[in-house]
C-alpha cells in the first residue's frame, strides 16, 4: 500500500519529500513502516528517511484529529491580537497548541505565517483560510468543514 504511493516519486527531484507528503495526504500521518519502505525504494538508509521526517513541521508520525486547526503564531498576527486569539481558541476547546482532542475530532497547531498578515490574525481550518479570525469564526469554520465532509 505505502509502496504504491511512494513509487511514482522515485527518481524525481526532491522525490522523497514529495513522496512523504503524498503518504501523509493519503493516510493522514506517516506510519512507522514508511521509513523502511521509502528507504528501500529510494535506496537510502532508514536513518536518512527518519532524518527528513523529523526535520519538517508538516510531517507527523501520529494520526491527527479529523480537522486540523492551524493558528498563526507569527509577529504580524501577534500585532493584531493573535496571542489573545490563540488563548481564546485554546480555552474554547480545552486544548493547548499541538494537542489533539480526546475524541480525535480536532488538532490545534501553530503555523508560522499563512501570508494573510494584512487581515490578521489568521487561521487555517481543515484547509480553509480564515482572515481576521476570532474564536467564533474558527468554530463556524470547523462546523462548516464537518458539514462539507459529511456531504
Amino acid at each position, binding site marked *: 500500500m505505502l509502496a504504491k504511493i511512494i513509487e511514482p516519486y522515485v527518481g524525481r527531484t526532491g522525490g*522523497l519529500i514529495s513522496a512523504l507528503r503524498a503518504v501523509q495526504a493519503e493516510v493522514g500521518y506517516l506510519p512507522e513502516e514508511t521509513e523502511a519502505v521509502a528507504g528501500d525504494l529510494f535506496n537510502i538508509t532508514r536513518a536518512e528517511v527518519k532524518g527528513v521526517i523529523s526535520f519538517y513541521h508538516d510531517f507527523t508520525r501520529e494520526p491527527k484529529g479529523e480537522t486540523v486547526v492551524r493558528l498563526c503564531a507569527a509577529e504580524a498576527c*501577534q500585532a*493584531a491580537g493573535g496571542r489573545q486569539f490563540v488563548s481564546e481558541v485554546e480555552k474554547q476547546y480545552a486544548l493547548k497548541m499541538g494537542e489533539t482532542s480526546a475524541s480525535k475530532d480536532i488538532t490545534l497547531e501553530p503555523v*508560522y505565517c499563512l501570508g494573510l498578515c494584512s487581515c*490578521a490574525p489568521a487561521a487555517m481550518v481543515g484547509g480553509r483560510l480564515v482572515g481576521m479570525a476570532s474564536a467564533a469564526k474558527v468554530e463556524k469554520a470547523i462546523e462548516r468543514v464537518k458539514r462539507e465532509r459529511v456531504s
Partner: protein
Amino acid sequence: MSALKLFLPLDSVAIAMGADDVADALQNEAAKRKIKLELVRTGSRGMHWLEPLLEVEKDCKRIGYGPVSEDDAVSVLDAILGDGRHDKCVGLVEEIPFFKKQTRLIFERCGVTDPLSLEDYKSHGGFEGLDKALNIDGAAICEEIMQSGLRGRGGAGFPAGIKWKTVSEAKADQKYIVVNADEGDSGTFADRMIMEGDPFCLIEGMIIAGVAVGATKGFVYLRSEYPIAERVLNGAIVNARAAGVLGDNIRGTGKTFDIEVFVGAGAYICGEETSLLNSLEGKRGEVRAKPPLPALEGLFGKPTLVHNVISLCSVPAILAKGAKFYRDYGMGKSTGTMPFQLAGNIKYGGLFETAFGVTLGELVNDIGGGTFTEKSVRAAQIGGPLGAYLPPEMYNLPMDYETMLANGAGVGHGGVVVFDESVNLLEQARYAFEFCVEESCGKCTPCRIGSVRGVEVIDRIRAGRDHEKNVTVLDDLCELMVDGSLCAMGGMTPIPVQSAVKHFPEDFGIKQKQEAAT
C-alpha cells in the same frame, strides 16, 4: 444578451475574507434572475481592507464594491444592473489614493487580469520582455540586468547582475534556475500575491533568466502554506506549455526551458538558499557552508541561479522597458521599485509597490493610516522575523538598503509589521529567540543552542534575577550568534532582540544610564 462580466479575486486574502462565498451567492442570484454571469477570478489589487473587492467594468474603467459579503450579493447585483449606487461602492478602483500613489512595475497586472489567461497576459504587455531577450544573446541580457541595478529582493539585496553573470560564465552540462518562493517572513505576502495574481510574470522572468545564463530547467520551491498559489502556478505552467511558451521550442526559437513546482514541507529555514537547495534534493533542509556559492555549485552540484520570486518578477519590465527606465526609479544603490507589505495592526493593510526612498512614516501613517485599534503606533518591525523593531522617532528614514543597514535594520523582503502601544518589546524579543529555537536547522551551535539560552536569559531579565548581569549576558550572546552562525537565521536573530533592547529599554527594566557623578 451578452453576459454580465464581473471581477472578483481568488487571492488567499480575498478567500480568507469570504470571496468564494460571495462568488457562490452571485452565481445563485444571477441564475435566479436568468442573467448570464461571467465571473472572472483575478488576483488581488492589494488593498486588503477592501477584500473581497468586486469589480465591474464601465467605459474601460473598473468600479469597485468592497468589502462585499455574501449577504451583499443581491443588493450589489441590483446596484450594478441599476445606477451603480451602493454603500459598498468605492468608485473607480484605480483612483483610490492607496492605489493611485503606487508605481506598479511588478504588480501592473495583478488584480486586473485573469491569472491563467495567456491572452489577458499578452494584451497587457506580457512577453514583451521575453521577446526582446530572445533576440539578444545571454551576455547582453545579463548586462541589461547589471545596468538596471536590480538587487535580490529576498532580503540580502545582492546585485542580481553579478549573480547572473557568474552563473552564465560557469561551465557545466546542466544549469538550473531555482525560485525561492518559501516566503516565510511574517508580514510578507508579495510572492504569494504575484504567484496567485500574475503567475506568467514569474514564468516569463524565469525563462528570461534561463535563456540568459544557459539553464534549461527551472524549479519553483514553494512553501506548503500556500495551496492557492500552488494551484494557480501549476495551472499557468500547463497553459504556458500548451501555448509553446515553455518546453523545447520557446516561442519558435528552438530554445528549451521548462519549469516544475516543488512544494516544501514546512521549514522557515528553507528560505535560506543553501537549505532550500538541500530540501529540493529531498534532504533535510540544513544549510551548507559557503563557498562554494550556489551560482557555481548549487542544485546537485551544478551552477544554479537562486532568486526570490519578486527579483525574477522584476525582470520582464526591465527587459521590456530597458535598464535605464528601471534605474531611474529609486534612490542611490537601491534602484527600481519594491512591493512594500503593510501588515499587523494597521488600518489600511496590503501591498504598496513604490520606488525605494519612500519613508517608513509615509508607509505606516500616510498610506497605512496608522493602527486599526486607533491607538498610537509604538513599533514597527521591518523585514520579517529577523528584522529590527523601530520606534516612531525613526520613521523619517527612507526605505532603501543602505539607509536601513546604517541604522541597524534592513529592508528584507519589504514587510512592515505595525504594533500599537500595547506591545511589550521584551515579549517580542523573547519570541524572536523562540522562533529561532523552533526553526533553527541545528547545524551550528550558536543558533541551535544560543536561541534556547536566549529565551532563558530573557526570562531571567523579566523576573529581575541578576538583572544587570543578565542584560550583559544577553548582549554577549547576541554578539556570539552574529559572529558564529553559518547563516542569517542565527546571524540575524539578534537584530530584533538588540533593536528592542536599544529602542525600548524600559520594557527590559533597563534604566537610561545616568552620567556617573565623579
